């Protein structure tokens, strides 16, 4: 099959699965998940074929796949807005991790939604499954996990989401990219609020949608500005040197802050990423998005959707780079660097004080994305792309692992009947023995996140980012990122220690069980990649092992840019520093929490004191936004618009008009209709009656009087004739 056709067909299987499940196979769980997993498998197959073809094509960056299949789509006056597909090295790398993670998550969802289990006792659609009571042959009653009531719906939405992500990745123009972006936004909304009967889920879904919407509006402004400047949205058009130069030399509309057009467009597009990838200040939705089921958190909020934000800025890097000189980065890149760095340290500090297993991972995602944005801001293109790929794998692994942990603890909850929060890490402990596969894969993922030296992919990609920051001389960024790396390692080890090591702190943790193979197989697969991928990106100049495996990552990805960035020479300082903070953080975390008992409070609380409260409450940003934005909006809606404008003014005007009309009607009725019109009518009637009554008098019934009258009138006529006729 030709590559171009294959690329066009990639988003199709998940979309078909969505429609088929929604329309036909809703009741049949087996058919629904088969359609879902089958579609993911088909797209995975297509992506792998394309990936293999891509890495075997030299000069893919200058001649990407798909440049021959452009379609005229929207007529715009004399010309057409054209859309097409594009697979250059960046796309190929993205397709790789997108296809794998989507497939793994589809498979995981089968087990997570408790396929094959009995229906729950009190389960209804819209709420989490709460367990089913079954009795065995002796009549003992057990509570077992129950099947998710909205089983097929989950796969349908995942299918739609996958279609959106594939569309975004393979598109060659900003418009279809935006379409995929928005489809994913919709699916994020639908899936965060999957258990829609829960009030917290409902609030979270709206919060997510509205917050990303803020970013999307600015992004759309950027797209519109770009289109109006150069008349095209296609990447190949935008990244031509003469287009970039033109954008760089025109000042931005309104002369905002002295930016060029390219700078303003870049910043506007980046604001879209701030929303989608949950950077500060639009980070508030991602922790609340953990209300959704864990596969959703894994896919959308770790591996794919939030990565789409970073993908966008990586893709638009040439535009962002316009105006930067070897000494100074361009204003757009400066914004990226600032926001990224701030986000990285900000959310890492919050993560150390969280007790929910998924929240820690959410803040960790925000922090890692901040890493990537900061690195892109200082120009480390290849490192960012590399870290994007590795992060997707180990973050998805970590989330799926946490889902497995939660399922295991829930099993214990059903068994013992305790009422505890199965997601709170302080209710876990000692799960290493109960859930070994989950433990080992989670450990690999956690080490990758912390950057455990040499054997995890996370080390290689994170180290490259730190090396770039150091090597290009951005000291502030470097120091902050190192601090964030230390905190990352610390909280990751805190999480692993609290969850898996030590002794079980509750009965439920005591009775936890390993999960189904459909959940543990994806964990193992992702763990494999989390380990091995890093070895493809070892810098050539690394001591000892550098050069053993060629730096495929660098070679392949750097081809995407017209001016390939050269690899930095090896520097020992950032390497040592990164090993130090990684191992140091891990050790500190293990030491602090290995003896944690259930009754004791978090030792961090006594260590940090009031700072701990601030961190636990996420720097009170949610409360700040509520005060500054949410309440005024409510006020505006309910008081101002509803009462003042709508009821007071508009309804007032209407009531006034009604009263005036009514009064005019009254006046007309009482002063014109009744007296004049009715009066005239009555007057005619009574007048005729009175005339009749008057005339009645002459009808006396007396013959002589009749004769008299006749003669009088006859005489009248006769005299008239006499005096007019006779004289003549």
């Amino acid at each position: 099959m030709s590559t171009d056709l294959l690329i066009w067909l990639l988003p199709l299987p998940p979309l078909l699965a969505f429609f088929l499940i929604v329309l036909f196979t809703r009741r049949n769980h087996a058919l629904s998940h088969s359609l879902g997993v089958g579609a993911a498998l088909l797209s995975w197959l297509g992506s792998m074929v394309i990936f293999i073809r891509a890495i075997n094509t030299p000069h893919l960056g200058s001649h990407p796949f798909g440049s021959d299949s452009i379609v005229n789509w929207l007529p715009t006056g004399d010309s057409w807005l054209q859309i097409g597909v594009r697979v250059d090295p960046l796309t190929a790398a993205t397709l790789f991790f997108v296809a794998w993670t989507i497939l793994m998550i589809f498979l995981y969802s089968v087990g997570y939604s408790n396929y094959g289990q009995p229906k729950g006792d009190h389960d209804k659609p819209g709420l989490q499954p709460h367990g089913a009571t079954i009795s065995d042959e002796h009549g003992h009653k057990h509570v077992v996990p129950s099947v998710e009531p909205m089983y097929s719906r989950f796969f349908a939405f995942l299918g739609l989401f996958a279609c959106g992500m594939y569309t975004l990745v393979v598109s060659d123009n900003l418009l279809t990219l935006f379409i995929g972006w928005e489809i994913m936004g919709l699916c994020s909304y639908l899936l965060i609020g999957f258990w829609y009967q829960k009030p917290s889920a409902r609030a979270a879904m709206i919060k997510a949608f509205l917050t990303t919407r803020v970013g999307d509006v600015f992004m759309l402004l950027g797209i519109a500005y770009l289109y109006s400047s150069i008349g095209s949205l296609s990447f190949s058009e935008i990244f031509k040197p003469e287009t970039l130069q033109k954008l760089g030399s025109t000042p931005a509309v309104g002369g905002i802050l002295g930016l060029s057009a390219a700078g303003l467009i870049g910043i506007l597009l980046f604001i879209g990423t701030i929303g989608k990838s949950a950077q500060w200040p639009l980070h508030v939705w991602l922790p609340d998005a953990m209300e959704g089921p864990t596969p959703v958190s894994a896919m959308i909020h770790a591996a794919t959707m939030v990565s789409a934000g970073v993908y966008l800025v990586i893709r638009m890097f040439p535009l962002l780079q316009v105006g930067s000189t070897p000494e100074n980065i361009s204003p757009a890149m400066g914004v990226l660097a600032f926001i990224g760095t701030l986000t990285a340290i900000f959310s890492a500090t919050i993560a150390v004080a969280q007790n929910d297993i998924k929240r820690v991972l959410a803040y960790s995602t925000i922090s890692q994305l901040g890493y990537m944005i900061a690195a892109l801001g200082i120009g480390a293109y290849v490192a960012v792309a590399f870290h994007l790929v590795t992060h997707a794998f180990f973050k998805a692994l970590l989330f799926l692992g946490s889902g497995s942990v939660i399922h295991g603890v829930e099993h214990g909850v059903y068994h013992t009947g305790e009422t505890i929060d199965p997601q709170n890490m302080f209710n876990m402990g000692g799960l290493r023995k109960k859930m070994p596969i989950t433990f080992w894969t989670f450990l690999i993922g956690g080490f990758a996140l912390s950057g455990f030296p040499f054997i995890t992919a996370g080390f290689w990609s994170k180290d490259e980012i730190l090396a770039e920051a150091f090597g290009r001389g951005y000291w502030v960024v470097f120091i902050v990122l190192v601090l964030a790396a230390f905190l990352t390692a610390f909280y990751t080890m805190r999480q692993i220690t609290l969850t898996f090591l030590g002794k079980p702190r509750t009965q439920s943790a005591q009775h936890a069980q390993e999960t189904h193979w459909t959940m543990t197989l994806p964990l193992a697969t992702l763990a494999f990649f989390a380990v091995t991928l890093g070895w493809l990106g070892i810098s050539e100049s690394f001591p000892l092992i550098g050069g053993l495996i060629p730096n495929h990552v660098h070679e392949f990805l750097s081809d995407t840019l017209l001016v390939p960035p050269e690899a930095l020479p090896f520097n020992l300082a950032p390497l040592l520093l990164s090993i130090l903070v990684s191992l140091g953080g891990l050790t500190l975390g293990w030491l602090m929490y290995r003896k944690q008992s259930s009754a004791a409070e978090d030792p961090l609380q006594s260590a940090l004191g009031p700072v701990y409260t601030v961190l636990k409450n996420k720097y009170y940003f949610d409360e700040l936004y509520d005060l500054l934005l949410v309440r005024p909006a409510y006020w505006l809606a309910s008081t101002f618009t509803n009462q003042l404008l709508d009821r007071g003014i508009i309804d007032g005007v209407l009531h006034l008009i009604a009263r005036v009309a009514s009064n005019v009607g009254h006046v007309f009725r009482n002063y014109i209709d009744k007296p004049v019109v009715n009066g005239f009518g009555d007057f005619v009637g009574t007048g005729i009656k009175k005339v009749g009554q008057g005339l009645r008098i002459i009808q006396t019934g007396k013959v002589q009087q009749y004769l008299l009258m006749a003669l009088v009138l006859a005489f009248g006529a006769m005299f008239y004739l006499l005096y007019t006729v006779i004289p003549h």
Partner: protein
Amino acid sequence: MTPEQIIFIIVAVVTLTAALSVVTSRNLIHSALWLILALFGVAIFYVLLDAGFFAVIQVIIYIGAIAILFIFAAMLTRRVMQDSDPQTNSTWWLGALIAGLLFAGLALVLTNWPGLSTPASPLAGDSEKIRQLGLALVSPDHYVLPFELASILLVAGMIGAIYVAGEKKR
């Protein structure tokens, strides 16, 4: 003044007086008797006009039948009206006025008519007058149709009078 004119004047005065008495008399029987006199006067006029046949017809029919009928009717309805009641109705002045006006108008018309003073031409073939009248009344070329219709009218009147005035069978 020729003798004819004197006779005329006397008869005219008598007749008119009788007629006035007819319409002003309180007693109905007296009115009927005065009517008989008036009719006599008219008969004499017929004689003066060389229409002797009509004079006889007048006497026989009008006086002999009609006036007698009046007396019968007056007798039959005598009880209800007293002779002392006023005989004229409430609007008698208007009636008098009208009658006077009518006379004035007629007189005016007559005096302005030139043919008024036509002298009487001598009659031609007077012995044949009655025969002529009889033939005219039954001849299809002349007046048989009005004659027949008049007879039908008399029959109808007779039947009607019998029916209307007849005693209703109980």
